[in-house]
């Protein structure tokens, strides 16, 4: 399991400069330090990826140590429930963090049972509901022909059941019939 160190001045990995890689090409053996020192990427998408990873790393440093502990527990739960692996993890915490960043990890279950969702998951759910109704202040109501958002409510309006009891509707309080006059009573 890859470890994530608490924040520090060093930007090198724990094994930086200590691992040597040897390989053979066309009969010649090369030995070099691993990982290879690389320059800053030049392509916009690569720079954007680098920036996202830096933001995630900064966030992890700020949340240390509780968040990493929760993430490790969440990762264990994820592996148990979704991958079926036990013991040694086949997915690194770093890779799982990347999944969270890109919205491919749906939720994180804390030991208390509370679920934390990635913002990408929340955004996906909201975009999904926007197919039904995107207008500000809408409330989802099930009508006889499907779910619809009520959006034409005026300030001061209240939700009450329509006279036919088919759907809740929004109307001024003065238009709400008294309980004893409502069809069927309450």
């Amino acid at each position, binding site marked *: 399991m890859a470890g994530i160190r608490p924040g520090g001045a060093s930007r090198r990995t724990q094994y930086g400069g200590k691992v040597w890689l040897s390989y053979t090409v066309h009969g010649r053996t090369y030995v070099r330090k691993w990982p290879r020192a690389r320059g800053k990427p030049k392509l916009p998408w690569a720079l954007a990826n680098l920036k996202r990873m830096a933001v995630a790393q900064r966030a992890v440093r700020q949340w240390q140590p509780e968040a990493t502990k929760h993430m490790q527990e969440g990762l264990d739960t994820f592996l148990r429930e979704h991958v079926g692996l036990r013991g040694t993890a086949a997915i690194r915490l770093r890779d799982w963090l990347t999944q969270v960043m890109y919205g491919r990890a*749906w*939720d994180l279950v804390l030991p208390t049972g*509370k*679920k934390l*969702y990635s913002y990408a*998951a*929340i*955004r*996906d*759910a*909201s975009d*999904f*509901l*926007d197919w039904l*109704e*995107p*207008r*500000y*202040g*809408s*409330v*989802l109501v099930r009508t006889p022909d499907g779910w619809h*958002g009520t*959006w034409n*409510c*005026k*300030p*001061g*309006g*209240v*939700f009450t059941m329509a006279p036919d009891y088919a759907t809740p509707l*929004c109307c001024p*309080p*003065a*238009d*709400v*019939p*008294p309980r004893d006059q409502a069809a069927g009573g309450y």
Partner: protein
Amino acid sequence: MPEDTFDQLQRLLDAIGQVPGSILIRGADRWIALPPGNVGDVLTINDGGMPEWVPPGTVQFA
């Protein structure tokens, strides 16, 4: 509806809110969960155009 689909929908909406009694409303930039009000509260629209729970005494009915 297949149970898998139902569970997927539940998980999808759980991403927005998990508190029992919540209501889904559309906020300025995304859907949010309005937490449940107190017993007897009335769901009304505030000056900003957003639904909110208020005590029944604050609303003048007919």
